[in-house]
């Protein structure tokens, strides 16, 4: 019985791993192909099935004028928008989360939990509902098709995540910590800045990673709110998909686009195994 269970477990884990890795392997293989090896029959293993070329990777850095796809600029746009919006969300979200975790608010029937819920519930908002008014709003103030406009929109996407993770985190940081600091003569801001923040670094890292993930993988807002002036990475790659771009450069650009966040998986796992994530995600 025990043995049967072990076999079952390893079979399942292996199958799932194959399922997860399959599209990546296929993309890596495709990125080294040329016209012949994509369009004649399905090929898998370089050298054995087909002769690999580097063409798919070379076009990534060429300018469009010379037949390239140039994903360098969208790459930096994506990094800028994601990081700026994450940073603003984390700063504002952490302050709000600290307030919600330490003080009591009362306004009519509104209590702390209701305010927290208000923050988090913004995730329920389907992007399409926001995108039409944002489209008109940003075009009125002239921020359509600009990086700044996107940052503003992304704050709505990311701040709920920051508040969600940080409220739970601060709830587990002992209150005695700030009380001691206050008795020692700090004002509330110093207590927060000098005592609570340094003890919240794991929480901040987790919140930061989640903001970066959900900022980086967003497609819809970038797709609706930008056209030609600024392009974000996902929009660029999808635009390649709908045009006549060959599969090899498509695969290469897709791989380059998803690569940086895979490193985040290692960081998340580290925090998970150390136990820092357990309370932060509830």
């Amino acid at each position, binding site marked *: 019985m025990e043995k049967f269970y072990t076999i079952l477990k390893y079979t399942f884990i292996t199958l799932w791993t194959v399922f*997860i890795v399959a599209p990546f392997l296929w993309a890596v293989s495709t990125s080294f192909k040329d016209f012949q090896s994509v369009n004649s029959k399905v090929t898998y293993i370089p050298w054995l099935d087909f002769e690999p070329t580097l063409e798919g990777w070379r076009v990534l850095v060429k300018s469009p004028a010379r037949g390239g796809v140039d994903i360098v600029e969208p790459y930096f746009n994506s990094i800028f928008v994601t990081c700026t919006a994450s940073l603003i969300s984390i700063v*504002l979200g952490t*302050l709000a989360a600290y307030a919600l975790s330490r003080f009591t608010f009362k306004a009519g029937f509104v209590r702390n939990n209701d305010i927290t819920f208000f923050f988090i519930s913004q995730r329920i908002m*389907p992007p*399409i509902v926001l995108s039409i*008014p944002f489209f*008109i709003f940003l075009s009125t103030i002239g921020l359509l098709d600009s990086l700044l406009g996107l940052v503003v929109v992304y704050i709505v996407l990311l701040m709920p995540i920051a508040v969600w993770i940080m409220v739970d985190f601060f709830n587990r940081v002992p209150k005695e910590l700030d009380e001691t600091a206050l008795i020692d003569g700090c004002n509330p801001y110093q207590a927060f800045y000098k005592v609570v923040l340094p003890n919240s670094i794991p929480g901040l890292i987790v919140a930061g990673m989640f903001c970066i993930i959900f900022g980086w993988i967003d497609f819809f807002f970038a797709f609706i709110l930008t056209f030609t002036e600024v392009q974000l990475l996902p929009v660029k790659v*999808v635009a390649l998909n709908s045009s006549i771009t060959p599969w090899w450069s498509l695969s290469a650009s*897709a791989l380059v686009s998803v690569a940086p966040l895979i490193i985040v998986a290692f960081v998340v*796992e580290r925090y998970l195994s150390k136990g820092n994530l357990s309370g932060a995600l509830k």
Partner: protein
Amino acid sequence: MNFKHKFVFLFPGLFVLIGILIFPIIFTIRLSLSGWNSYTPEMNFIGITNYIRLFTDDPRFWESFFRLSFLSVTTVILQYIIGFALALMVWREIKFKRFFRVIFLIPMMTTPVIMTVIWRTFFHESLGPLNDLLGRVGVEPILWLSDPVIAKFTVIIVEVWQWTPFMFLLLLAGLLSLPKEPFLAAAIDGASPFRKFVYVTFPLMAPISIGAIIIRLIEASKIMDTVFVLTSGGPGTSTETSSFYIYIKGLREFQMGYAATLSFTYLVIMIISLTIIAKVLTKLMIKE
């Protein structure tokens, strides 16, 4: 502590969020009462005409809504079962534990649309590897993207691939935070692994499970990226979800007023149904 300070902490975030959101929401409601389209791009007032049209003369919206419900509920159930199984398997010591944990997390770090671009080549009916490999073991080519029924399952496969890791992460984080005592007690009583799961692990995990399911349902109800790239709602309208239909009405046909009506109705339905689901799940899973 002085009451003034707490507002200094709370207000910047709260007001930025409200400031960004208040305009779009009021604007959507006002827009939904107008006939803004490409012929008359202006904020006129036509009362509840749009709402009457939606409730009496637009089966396509309701079909897309039921399709969305089917897709999101199915994917979330699958994600929950698979995610829970995976989390249980790498919870305790096994070989290469950390390696598998990383592998299981990777898909949620990748951009859905970009991975879907790859999935599209993967599911390609004549040049994709899947039909080719199936063909080698004697299976007839499957119309992954052009058959109205199968295309739904293709979307489900991609969604499960993409988001099971998130469920896995939330559930594993939950498992790792469980107290040790109940498990010791069960071990002393000599409970079988199955009974241990039913009577100890599952009840302890119920609150975390509910949280994870609700979070995933919220995110799944926004299914759009995958459909957009994989099938563009097709073939026909067989994989069209509510968001995608609103997108077509609003930003392709430029019936802004009507699209706003759809948006607002959709949002209200979402909030009500998610609240009900949360209540029902809590009732079902927490017995006490």
